[in-house]
C-alpha cells in the first residue's frame, strides 16, 4: 500500500513536471515581439458597433496589401481594451475611452452616432431626454405615458460592459441607473433584431448597426440622428471610435489604423462620421 502511494506520488510528480516543461517553454519568438510578430496576423477585436467598418476596411486593406493578414472579431468595447492591454491582440476597438489603462495609445478613427430605436407599433416619433430617462429607468411602463400607443414598454439593454451602454448611460441617463428589468442582449445586431420582432421594444444602438427596415428611429428633443446634426452638435448621443494599441503600433497594425482613419468613403458608407467632418468636440456636448 505504502509503496503504491509512493508510486502514485512519483507518477503525479512526473506528469506535472512534464506538463510544466511543456508549458514553460514558450514559442521562441515569445519574448521578442508582440502577438502580431508571432502569428503574422494583426488581431483586432472589440466594439461590435465598429465591427462593420473594421471588417470592411480589413478586407480592403488586405486586398491592397497581399501579404497582410488581419483577423477581426467583436466582443464588445471592454473586451477590446482588456485584450489589447493584456497583449492578447494588437488593436482593441472601443466606443469608450480607457481611463484605467493610461499605457494604451488611443487612435480616434471615426465618430459614431447612436439612435434610440423602437418597434414601429410603439407609435413614438420623438422623445425628450427627460422622457428617455423615465422610459429607461423603468418609471413609465406603457408607451401611452410617453405619447405613444397603448403598448407595454420592453426595454432591451446591452451588457454592462458595452460601450454603447456606457455612452447612453453618460449622455442620457446621467446618474440614474438603467432599469434592470430589461432584456440584456449581447450586441448591436441582437438588440436590433429583438426590437424588430418584439412589439413595444426599445433600445439604443449605433447608427452603423441599423440594417433594413422594421424599426422606428426616435428623435431626441426634436432632432433626428443624422450626420449634420451630429457634426454640428445638435444631436447629443455620439462618441469617438477608438483603436487602442499597446505602445506605438508598427507594421501592418500602424498601416491599418491609418487606412481606417483616411478611408472617409468607407467611414461614410458604414454610417460613421469622419473625424475631419466634426465641428464640435466631445467636451462641447
Amino acid at each position, binding site marked *: 500500500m505504502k509503496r503504491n502511494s509512493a508510486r502514485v506520488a512519483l507518477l503525479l510528480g512526473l506528469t506535472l513536471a512534464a506538463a510544466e516543461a511543456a508549458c514553460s517553454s514558450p514559442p521562441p519568438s515569445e519574448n521578442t515581439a508582440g502577438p502580431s510578430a508571432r502569428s503574422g496576423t494583426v488581431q483586432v477585436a472589440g466594439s461590435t458597433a465598429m465591427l462593420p467598418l473594421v471588417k470592411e476596411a480589413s478586407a480592403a486593406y488586405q486586398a491592397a496589401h497581399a501579404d497582410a493578414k488581419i483577423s477581426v472579431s467583436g466582443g464588445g468595447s471592454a473586451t477590446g481594451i482588456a485584450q489589447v*492591454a493584456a497583449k492578447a491582440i494588437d488593436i482593441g476597438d472601443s466606443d469608450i475611452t480607457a481611463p484605467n489603462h493610461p499605457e494604451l495609445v488611443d487612435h480616434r478613427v471615426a465618430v459614431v452616432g447612436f439612435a434610440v430605436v423602437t418597434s414601429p407599433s410603439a407609435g413614438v416619433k420623438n422623445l425628450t431626454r427627460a422622457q428617455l430617462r423615465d422610459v429607461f429607468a423603468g418609471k413609465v411602463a406603457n408607451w401611452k405615458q410617453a405619447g405613444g400607443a397603448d403598448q407595454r414598454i*420592453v426595454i432591451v439593454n446591452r451588457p454592462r460592459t458595452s460601450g454603447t451602454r456606457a455612452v447612453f448611460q453618460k449622455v442620457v441617463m446621467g446618474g440614474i441607473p438603467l432599469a434592470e428589468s430589461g432584456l440584456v442582449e449581447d450586441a448591436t445586431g441582437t438588440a436590433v433584431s429583438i426590437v424588430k420582432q*418584439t412589439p413595444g421594444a426599445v433600445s439604443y444602438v449605433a447608427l452603423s448597426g441599423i440594417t433594413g427596415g422594421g424599426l422606428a428611429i426616435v428623435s431626441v428633443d426634436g432632432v433626428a440622428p443624422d450626420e449634420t446634426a451630429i457634426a454640428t452638435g445638435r444631436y447629443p448621443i455620439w462618441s469617438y471610435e477608438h483603436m487602442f494599441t499597446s505602445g506605438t503600433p508598427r507594421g501592418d497594425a500602424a498601416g491599418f489604423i491609418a487606412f481606417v482613419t483616411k478611408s472617409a468613403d468607407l467611414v461614410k458608407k458604414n454610417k460613421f462620421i469622419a473625424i475631419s467632418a466634426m465641428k464640435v468636440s466631445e467636451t462641447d456636448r
Partner: protein
Amino acid sequence: MIALQARRARRTEHVALLGLRIAAGFVILAMVALLVYLAFEGTKTFYVDRFPLWSFLFSPEFAPDANHPGAAVFIAGTLAVTVFAIAVGGPFGVAVGIFLAEIAPYRMTQVLKPAIEVMVGIPSVVYGWLGLTLLVPLIRTHTSSPSGFGLAAAGIVLAIMILPTVITLSEDAFRSLPAALKEGSLALGATRWQTITRVLLPSASSGIAVALILGIARAVGETLAIQMVIGNATQFPKGLFAPTAALTTEIVTDMPGATAGSLLEHALFSMAFLLLLIAMLLIVLVRFALRRRA
C-alpha cells in the same frame, strides 16, 4: 533466444504500463489543474477585493462598478430554471425510462433509442436557436409576456435538453433490477402497472435518484441554449414569463467584456468556481446514492 524474447516482452510490458499510468494520471492532473486554477481566480473576489462571501451569495445587488457584486439574483435564477427543468423533464424522463425498460416492444426501442442519441448530439446552440425562433415567439403571442424571453422559455428548453440523461439512466436503473423481483410480483397476480409502481419503482429509487441528480447537473451547467432565451435581466425571476439570468448566462454575457483583473471579472470567476463546486457536490451525491444501492 527465447529468454531474450521473454525479456523484451517484459520490458515492453513495463514501458506500456508506465505509459498507461501516465495517461490515467493525466485525468487527475486535468481535474486538479481545473480546480486549482478556478479556486485561485474564483476566490480573488474575497481575498483581493475583500468582498464578503456572505454578500456574494446572498446580496441581490449586482453592481461591480460600485464594488458590490452580489450574485444572489443569478443563484436564484439557476435554481429557478433547474427546478423548472427537473419538475417538467424529470417525471417525463423517468416515465419514458420505465417505458423503455418494461413496456416498449423491441421495434419501438429500435426507434426510440437512436432518437434519444440524436437528441444528445444536437448542439446546445441548435436548441437555443429552436427556442429563439419557435418557443419565444410562441410565448410572446400566447401569453401575457410582452417579449417571450424569460424563465419559462429557458425552463422548457432545459427540460427537453435533460431528457436524454434522465431517460437513459433511469432505464438503466430498471434494467439492472433482478428479474425475480418482477416475476414474483406478476406471479402474485399484480398487473404490470402495479408491479412497476409498487415493486420496481421503490427498488430502483437510488438509480432514479442518480438519473435526476445528473439531470440537475446538466441543467445547472447548460449555458448558450438558455442564454439565447432567458432574457439575461439582472433581476430575480418574478414570474414564469419575466426575464431573468442564471450563473452560466451571466458569465457568458459579461465575460467577453470584462477587464482583466477587474472586480467584474473576479466575480464572474467566482460564479464559475461556484458552478464547479456544485458539479462536484452533485457527483458526491451520486456516489452516495450508488453506495446506498450496493
